[in-house]
């Protein structure tokens, strides 16, 4: 128990070096120590009490689910004009911007604590809304096949959806069917498979939430490592009478990245030692974690980066032909669009990136396997990807914010005026600062990505000289990508 007397040192040591492979003394952009933490649950004991309550998660989900229920009805029978329909405005303007600009970069997978999609499935599976019910739940409780315990299924599902994004974001019923389908899918999956298998392995949103949450400035982790180590009966892993084992099939004791932690707070309820904590930290910390990296996640990074560029071109670009293609005006055009989108994100981006990494490996004369270097360095595409999406999302929310108060007063587009805001005029704000915000985001993303690339190279190659040489070509790639986004968004 002596370790408890020096919790800070113990925590820093375990969290940063022992478990994660992040070299001691690393600093975010050379300024903020990567192991800096601000423990919110320690500072605000009230927060811990709130999180420990089983009602917290239930109420959070219920609130979003109520809005979602109305929105779904609006999607099916409300006005087909997307920007006057609660569902489309809520999902593709409000939720998307909030997700990309606030939730993921600052609060990790906090969305999954609010998400209404898996609630029905989870309630059925547990045969309970709030309290834990003893005995078998309503599920076969099967484990997800080992071969699919990665991001590949999500990558493919997301790609499938991405091909229809033009239609999806503009047609109310398509969005409604998709979301209803996800709710039903989550129910079916939860009846067959254990816990949140749907969320962890099948939710198309979950993939990028997971990968991009590595960027977040918030994390849920164990507090003092030795407490976990000495606790032989790991309640967070097996569950207790009052609370469930981690629904996301993580081991909260050793969890090193945000990727698959859905902020469900069960581990706060299982842990009798109150050893779980919510903490603030410097951004991007998990990208440096030398554990569980894989090609599946690398491809997720390629898909997100490529998709950001393509959407910027289709949705914010001046090319009518592209828009016609994405809108399925002609079958041939659509096929050209869909296949080039798929080819770009699945083949072209990874191939070009691979070439640069290969060059770096040759330059440095490093003898680590190419695939390892390629996989690891791919995580340096996450910051620039995230910030490109942020820059893109500015161009969604700032011109179109006015639709939000409008649909709040008139959710179905039937001429209601519940709160007196139905008449808010469409009125873009901040158009003159938008390019400045976008440029700042892109440059920050580039610096961030370079920083991560260098740290990963050093971690992988274990040698400053080699790492320097190996990082040069990827830096050129990253600069090129930033240039491309500059042209698409402000050029």
């Amino acid at each position, binding site marked *: 128990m002596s370790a408890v007397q020096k919790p800070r040192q113990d925590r820093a040591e375990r969290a940063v070096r022992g478990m994660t492979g992040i070299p001691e003394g690393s600093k975010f*952009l050379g300024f903020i120590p990567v192991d800096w933490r601000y423990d919110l649950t320690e500072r605000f004991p009230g927060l811990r009490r709130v999180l420990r309550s089983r009602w917290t998660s239930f109420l959070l989900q219920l609130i979003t689910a109520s809005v979602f229920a109305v929105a779904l009805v609006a999607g099916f029978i409300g006005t087909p004009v997307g920007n006057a329909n609660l569902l489309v405005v809520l999902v593709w303007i409000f939720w998307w911007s909030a997700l990309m600009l606030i939730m993921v970069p600052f609060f990790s997978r906090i969305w999954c604590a609010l998400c209404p999609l898996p609630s029905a499935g989870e309630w059925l599976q547990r045969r309970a809304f709030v309290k834990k019910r003893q005995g078998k739940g309503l599920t076969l409780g099967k484990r997800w096949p080992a071969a699919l315990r990665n991001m590949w299924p999500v990558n493919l599902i997301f790609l499938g959806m991405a091909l229809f994004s033009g239609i999806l974001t503009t047609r109310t019923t398509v969005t409604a069917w998709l979301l209803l389908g996800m709710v039903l899918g989550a129910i079916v999956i939860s009846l067959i498979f254990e816990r949140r298998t749907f969320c962890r392995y099948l939710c198309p949103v979950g993939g990028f939430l997971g990968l991009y949450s590595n960027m977040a400035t918030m994390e849920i982790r164990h507090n003092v490592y030795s407490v976990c180590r000495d606790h032989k009966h790991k309640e967070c892993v097996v569950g207790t009478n009052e609370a469930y084992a981690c629904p996301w099939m993580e081991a909260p004791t050793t969890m090193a990245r945000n990727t698959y932690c859905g902020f469900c707070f069960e581990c706060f309820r299982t842990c009798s030692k109150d050893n779980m904590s919510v903490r603030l930290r410097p951004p991007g910390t998990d990208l440096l974690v030398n554990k569980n990296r894989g090609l599946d996640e690398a491809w997720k990074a390629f898909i997100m980066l490529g998709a950001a560029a393509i959407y910027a071109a289709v949705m914010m670009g001046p090319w009518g032909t592209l828009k016609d293609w994405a809108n399925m005006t002609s079958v041939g055009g659509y096929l050209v669009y869909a296949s080039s989108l798929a080819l770009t994100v699945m083949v072209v981006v990874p191939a070009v990136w691979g070439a640069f990494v290969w060059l770096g490996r040759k330059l440095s004369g490093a003898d680590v396997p190419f695939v390892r270097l390629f996989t690891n360095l791919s995580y340096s595409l996450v910051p620039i990807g995230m910030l490109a999406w942020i820059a893109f999302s500015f161009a969604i929310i700032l011109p179109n914010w006015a639709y939000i108060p409008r649909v709040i007063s008139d959710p179905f587009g039937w001429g209601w005026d519940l709160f007196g805001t139905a008449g808010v005029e469409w009125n873009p704000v901040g158009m003159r600062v938008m390019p400045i915000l976008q440029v700042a985001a892109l440059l920050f993303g580039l*610096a961030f990505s370079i920083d991560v690339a260098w740290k990963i190279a050093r971690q992988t190659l274990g040698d400053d000289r080699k790492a*320097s040489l190996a990082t040069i070509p990827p830096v050129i790639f990253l600069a090129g990508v930033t240039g491309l986004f500059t042209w698409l968004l402000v050029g």
Partner: protein
Amino acid sequence: MEMRQNKRRYGTALLAVGALLALGVYAALALTGVASASGREPNVVEVNVAARQWAWEPGVIEVNQGDLVRLNLMSLDVVHGFYLDGYGIDEALVAGQPVTIEFVADKPGRWMFRCSEVCGPFHPYMIGWLRVSPNWYARSSLIGVALLAAGTIGGFLLKVVKS
């Protein structure tokens, strides 16, 4: 100890790059300001712009800062609107009825013109670009990119040479 020093140097390098970056942006601003001030005769640029579901033709219009821009706008199918980011111009375009707008392109940069009358599903994506040179937003971004890349690569090379 050696490792620690390296790290400190790396931090300093980034600081230096950051400072350079700020300088570069400042220089770009100053230069473009000077360029636009050094009396180039403003032109009158007249462009016919057609609106259709859901694109502008031409999609890209290029002018120089200070030019007098005259746009002859006409919708070919349904009611559209012409809204110009940054300038706040907003005109409704009824099909078949030409509308002419005139303004001085005094704000450099790339601005989107977008449809302001809901005109069908792809209405939010009905966007064109007005480029008012010199586009210092893009320029300072590219200068920043170049500085960041050159700075880090230079730093890497230095490190290699030293070791």
